[in-house]
């Protein structure tokens, strides 16, 4: 059955310190986990939760986004009267780019007004997780909160940039600060906000009328006193992936079987664009351990502590360690990688050796030949 919740994936001004990985794509379409793009996690969570209608507020560099999402059929969202809506900014007006998300919500207020659901969830694309929004909505209704924010207790020193929140014993968020704030709390916001449609439209108009155009800062943070903003504590895994250190760390966490099982199967599967690659061919002489390997790879060399995306070729004698090789990468004979991130279609010539550090991995731009 449908969940009476409208989905929004808000790509407007996402905090992005992904360096070369977002040179030609938006944060939402950064490849992750061997075959996914970052947006797949929140989008699949929404679909699996029964959310019938998802709008993606696109912003910059969204060509890759359109390619990836297509008609939404891979997420079963190509529906008759609902489904997937990619809403780009107006191309005619360059000043649009500078404006905050509230401005874009306002331009598309029809989208909210027309949706049959009473509630809206506004999320970001860069949270790697598997969330059941039906449970979030249940808690939201039971608690009587105005806004419910999905939060997660995280260990000290997680590298991604995330807002921190202080929560009182009733579950109410009494303080919340941007990632650079000094608030001492191990609870981070997963930037998923569930609220009533009417309240959202009211906040959009009121904030804009006050000359303020930033949803979280101007509509939520500044109203923690007036509105009851509650935290929903997420139990599953979480990766806040918006800088290279976090990208590398959370990628490598997938090599822990319990993280792999939880992220990809609980509560439901993560969907992505189907690529029709054949199974991976491990040739005699291949030596692969402690790695995540996507389909369509052809491996003759050694791979350890690494993630290979679809269609990667590791030639004889090549050694790939602690590295991430995206789609169609080629590691030539006797090439050696350690702590590298190769973007799509990178070719490493025979005998080439590259080495980064786990703090600062070596990054090769898309289509480079090294």
């Amino acid at each position, binding site marked *: 059955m449908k969940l009476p919740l409208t989905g929004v994936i808000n790509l407007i001004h996402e905090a992005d310190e992904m360096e070369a990985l977002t040179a030609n794509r938006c944060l939402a379409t950064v490849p992750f986990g061997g075959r996914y793009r970052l947006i797949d996690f929140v989008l699949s969570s929404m679909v699996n939760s029964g959310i019938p209608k998802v709008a993606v507020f696109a912003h910059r560099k969204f060509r890759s986004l359109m390619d990836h999402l297509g008609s939404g059929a891979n997420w079963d969202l190509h529906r008759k009267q609902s489904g997937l809506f990619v809403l780009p900014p107006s191309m005619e007006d360059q000043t649009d780019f500078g404006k905050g998300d509230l401005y874009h919500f306002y331009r598309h207020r029809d989208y909210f007004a027309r949706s049959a659901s009473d509630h809206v969830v506004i999320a970001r694309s860069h949270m790697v997780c598997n969330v059941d929004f039906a449970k979030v909505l249940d808690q939201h209704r039971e608690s009587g909160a105005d806004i419910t924010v999905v939060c997660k207790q995280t260990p000290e020193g997680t590298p991604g940039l995330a807002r921190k929140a202080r929560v009182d014993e009733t579950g109410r968020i009494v303080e919340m600060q941007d990632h650079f704030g000094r608030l001492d709390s191990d609870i981070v916001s997963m930037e998923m906000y569930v609220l009533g449609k009417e309240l959202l439209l009211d906040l959009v108009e009121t904030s804009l009328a006050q000359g303020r155009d930033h949803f979280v800062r101007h509509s939520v943070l500044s109203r923690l006193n007036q509105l009851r903003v509650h935290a929903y504590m997420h139990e599953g895994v979480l990766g806040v992936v918006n800088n290279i250190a976090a990208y590398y760390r959370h990628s490598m966490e997938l090599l822990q079987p319990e993280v792999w099982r939880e992220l990809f199967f609980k509560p439901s599967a*993560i969907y992505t664009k189907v690529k029709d690659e054949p199974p991976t061919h491990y040739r005699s002489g291949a030596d692969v351990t402690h790695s995540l390997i996507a389909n369509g790879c052809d491996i003759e060399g050694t791979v350890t502590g690494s993630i290979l995306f679809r269609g990667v070729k590791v030639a004889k004698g090549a050694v790939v360690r602690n590295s991430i090789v995206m789609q169609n990468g080629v590691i030539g004979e006797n090439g050696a990688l350690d702590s590298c991130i190769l973007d799509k279609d990178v070719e490493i010539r025979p005998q080439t050796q590259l080495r980064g550090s786990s703090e600062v991995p070596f990054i090769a731009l898309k289509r480079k030949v090294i």
Partner: protein
Amino acid sequence: MRKNECIAMLLAGGEGRRLGVLTKDLAKPAVPFGGKYRIIDFTLSNCVHSGIETVGVLTQYQPLVLTQHLGIGSPWGLDRREGGMHVLPPYVRQKGGTWYKGTANAIYQNLGFIESYDPEYVLIISGDHIYKMNYDLLLDAHKKNNADATIAVISVPWADASRFGILSVDEDGRVVEFAEKPKNPTSNLASMGVYMFTWSVLKEALIRDEADRQSSNDFGKDVIPTLLEDGARLFSYQFSDYWKDVGTIDSLWEANMDLLEERPSLQLNDRSWRIFTASPNQPAQYVAPTARVQGSLINEGCVVEGAVNRSVLFNGAQVGEGSLVEDSILMPGAVVGKNAKIIRAIVGEGAVVGDGCRVGSVDAAEIAVVGSGETIRLPEEQKEAEPV
């Protein structure tokens, strides 16, 4: 919409009795193959790549899994507004219904379906074979020869020829003789069960065949010989790439092992001729620190913690620590526990081989088979006594 010049009728009702426990609840075309696919994916993908966008799939035996797999045809891009894929089970009329009597009768019962597309040519294929073929080239040859029917043929070893429908042809490739499983074959050109017919000729032949009470209503046994007798223009079309009928446990196992060669003659990783299939939506395969994988094909969703040699692992298959899987096939979701040994075996869909168990052996004459959904466990006492 443009008229369909050529549509395909895909015979997918095969029972595949010789595949034993693997086809207990499964039509043969739905049998998993190549780590990711089901047999029928090959012919369906061939159709799409050949530009044939209207395909009738004739189901019969145990169609549930097959029909589920086919869905609305979207994995093959055959979910079309006009044409596309249509599943055609035997039809129950008011007075009841029966299974298709033979391959020709199956097409005969669906004359109305074909007529509704008003094609010039009809391609008859079977969902039982593994091969990659451009039917458009077959159609070109058919037209060039101004043929009534064109039969795709492949050279088989003379020793095997008596297991096939064998054609003798003249220097133009015109068929002069056709013998179904001849004792003393006069040629080694075997019919692949791929027929291109001019529709008007086929229609008439089917109506005549149906009226003939003596006929077993089969293409190879009845329709083709009768056409030949009547002097119809029957031509052969020589195919020389990989083609295999995976009708037995041995041939199914062999065909899978063929894929593990250094330069396999059936190339799955061919970007210009992808084999499409329904996606199981599984994450990238996980190869643990304790794993060793050599000369194998492994699909998404697998978890490998033991050793895998010269084997094919379908999506979601698991191999526990200390186990060895060698010269074997693990079908989708098959689970091998810890310290088990699987040698020269096929483990069926969702089957479980418990810790410490052994299946198959290097010198066994036959390929060992664990049926779909079966569970094999050591008796409690052995578990402790005999770690492998």
